[in-house]
């Protein structure tokens, strides 16, 4: 009874907004708490250079302040349940922002530090006879391209044929289910175990001390095949059954149906999957460290001798800095920048292919 009189005496302009926070309140509170924390840290930092300004702590504590404020304000106006809801909204949004911070920091530092040595010399010379500064990564880039190309040539036919088996011939039988399960498990093989495997195979057949780019390609294939199988299988399953049935009805043999109807329909998706698989293995370091090893000179022969690759180059410059650590670290950053650019280009190209060459389903 007392509540009824209380609400009756309070003048309310809009019955829908009663007991709710006005629309922009949360944004205002967020801006307010960020400004307050920014000022607090500005005052703490007032007698120090601007570079010392702790922007991460300011933003973080600002977000914490906002979460507390919105909870308190909403509990007063809207009640406990809505307050919890608003609090969780703040926390969940913060989780997303927190995940972005390392990505931004990583891309920013790689770009800034990598540009110092991102010059012509870096792309035109190897590390042969280079002590201290100078030198480049041409041998590593060539090695990466050769090894990745070989791994692709090995993995794509096997992966594609396996996915064709799974979709067109397997009929979800025992073998098909076993292959699906083990492909899933194979996706989780640690990359270094793949390297050890290639090493073990080549030691048994070629004796200890053998090392070549081809060995590295075998290791990468072990990592690449399951990715290719998974993505192509998904794409083949997307092909409408009506297309296959129409082809069968015209008397076309099954294998020709697959080659002439199923594959052309799904080729865009398969290409995307292959490019993403390449992007994944091109950055692998550990297996190549154990198999292709490292060298300072150019090696065009994939069948014999150590072969440098870009990820191993980055690791090597970082781990063995030599007489001029600054120069080595700059080379490592430049190598990292090159690597990220290659991966990003592959990713973007894959999205492009998926978007523009997808079959027109007409629906």
């Amino acid at each position, binding site marked *: 009874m007392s509540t009824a009189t209380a609400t009756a005496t309070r003048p309310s302009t809009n019955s829908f907004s009663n007991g709710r926070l006005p629309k922009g309140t949360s944004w205002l509170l967020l801006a307010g708490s960020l400004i307050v924390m920014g000022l607090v840290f500005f005052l703490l930092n007032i007698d120090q250079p601007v570079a010392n300004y702790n922007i991460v702590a300011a933003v973080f504590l600002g977000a914490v302040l906002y979460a507390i404020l919105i909870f308190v304000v909403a509990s007063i106006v809207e009640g406990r*349940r809505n307050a*919890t*809801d608003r609090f*969780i909204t703040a926390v*969940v949004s913060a*989780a*997303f922002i*927190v*995940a*972005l911070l*390392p*990505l931004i920091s*990583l891309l920013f530092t790689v770009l800034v530090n990598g540009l110092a040595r991102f010059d012509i010399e870096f792309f035109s010379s190897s590390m042969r006879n280079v002590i201290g500064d100078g030198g480049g990564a041409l041998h590593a880039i060539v090695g990466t391209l050769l090894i990745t190309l070989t791994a692709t040539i090995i993995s794509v*036919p*096997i*992966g594609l*044929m*396996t996915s*064709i*088996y*799974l979709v067109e*011939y*397997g009929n979800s039988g025992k*073998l098909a289910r076993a*292959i699906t399960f*083990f492909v*899933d*498990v*194979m996706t*989780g*093989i*640690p990359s*270094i*175990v793949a390297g*050890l*495997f290639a090493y*073990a*195979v080549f030691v*048994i057949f070629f004796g200890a001390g053998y090392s070549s780019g081809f060995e590295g390609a075998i290791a990468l294939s*072990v990592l690449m*095949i399951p990715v290719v*199988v998974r993505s192509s299988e998904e794409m083949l399953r997307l092909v409408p059954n009506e297309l296959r049935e129409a082809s069968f009805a015209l008397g076309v*043999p*099954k*294998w020709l149906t697959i080659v002439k109807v199923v594959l052309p329909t799904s080729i865009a998706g398969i290409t995307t999957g292959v490019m993403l698989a390449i992007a994944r293995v*091109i*950055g692998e*370091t*550990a297996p190549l*460290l*154990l198999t292709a090893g490292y060298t300072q000179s150019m090696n065009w022969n994939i069948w014999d001798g150590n072969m440098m690759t870009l*990820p191993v180059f*980055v*690791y090597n410059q*970082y781990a063995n800095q030599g007489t001029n650590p600054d120069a080595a670290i700059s080379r*490592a950053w430049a190598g*990292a920048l090159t*690597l*990220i650019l290659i991966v990003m280009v592959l*990713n973007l190209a894959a999205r492009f292919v998926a978007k523009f060459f997808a079959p027109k389903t007409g629906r």
Partner: protein
Amino acid sequence: MATTTDAGPEAPAKIHAKRRPGDIVFSGTALGAGIIILAVLAAVTIFLVIESIPAFTTPADENPLLKGKTFLEYTWPLVFGTIWSSILALVMAAPLAIGIALFISHYAPRRAAAVLGYIIDLLAAVPSVVFGLWGGLVLAGFVQPFYVWLNTYLGWIPLFSGQVSATGRTILTAALVLAIMVLPIMTAICREVFLQTPVLHEEAALALGATRWEMIKMAVLPFARGGMVSAAMLALGRALGETMAVTMVLSVSGVVTFELLTATNPTTIPANIALQFPEAYGTGVSLLIATGLVLFVVTFAVNAIARWIVNRRAEFSGAN
């Protein structure tokens, strides 16, 4: 009448397609490719076993890496470090990944969701060696002051006790990098299962007057529990096998300790292999391969269990 004529020709009606040579060759190749995959997996196991046998047959004194220790004494600290760093990474990544997945699936505007998901996937595209470089040169220096703070004010907790590392290259930093690296895969799987929640359940909860968080608590999270567990397991498998980030970030000493902030840190199996392998010879190599086999078995088990949970869920969730 009609039923009898229908039933009559049904028995011999199974027409076998003509087996043309092209068909036989093509299906044979497809089958062969599938079998190659199983053979490769078997070969991985067999070759690793063959190559690791010398580590057990030769006396421990002659092994350049064992230096008189037994295999278990050598491997145990490595296994401990591997599991410890991965669990730390998982503890940090799991709440964050679930939060991000919820944000993308239930909080962000529908139109922005795809772009936000793509941004998180970008993290997965960054090569591990770049993460290692960034972790060793940028993150370690950045977090070191926080470690000093943690040690000063929370040093009474055993985890944060001990002498703080001056470089910041501790097991906690390595676990942080690992957490960032497993974030995308965990987010992607969680997002997928959250989106599979039956819309009717969500709408029913909202219609009963639940707030968005109550709807998520009542409808989304219970439905997605199995998916979240398997996402965590897959992330664990990824973290267990990650090599470069740990190798480049951690300054190792191969001890068994729970202290997170000191300069003496446990190392992991993959990091140990990457560091020792280039200089190893003879039975030392066999020993490293044997530790790799241990890692393989552990990750295989973790992944198999995770996949089993996913598949079981797919069979029984009739909701979608």
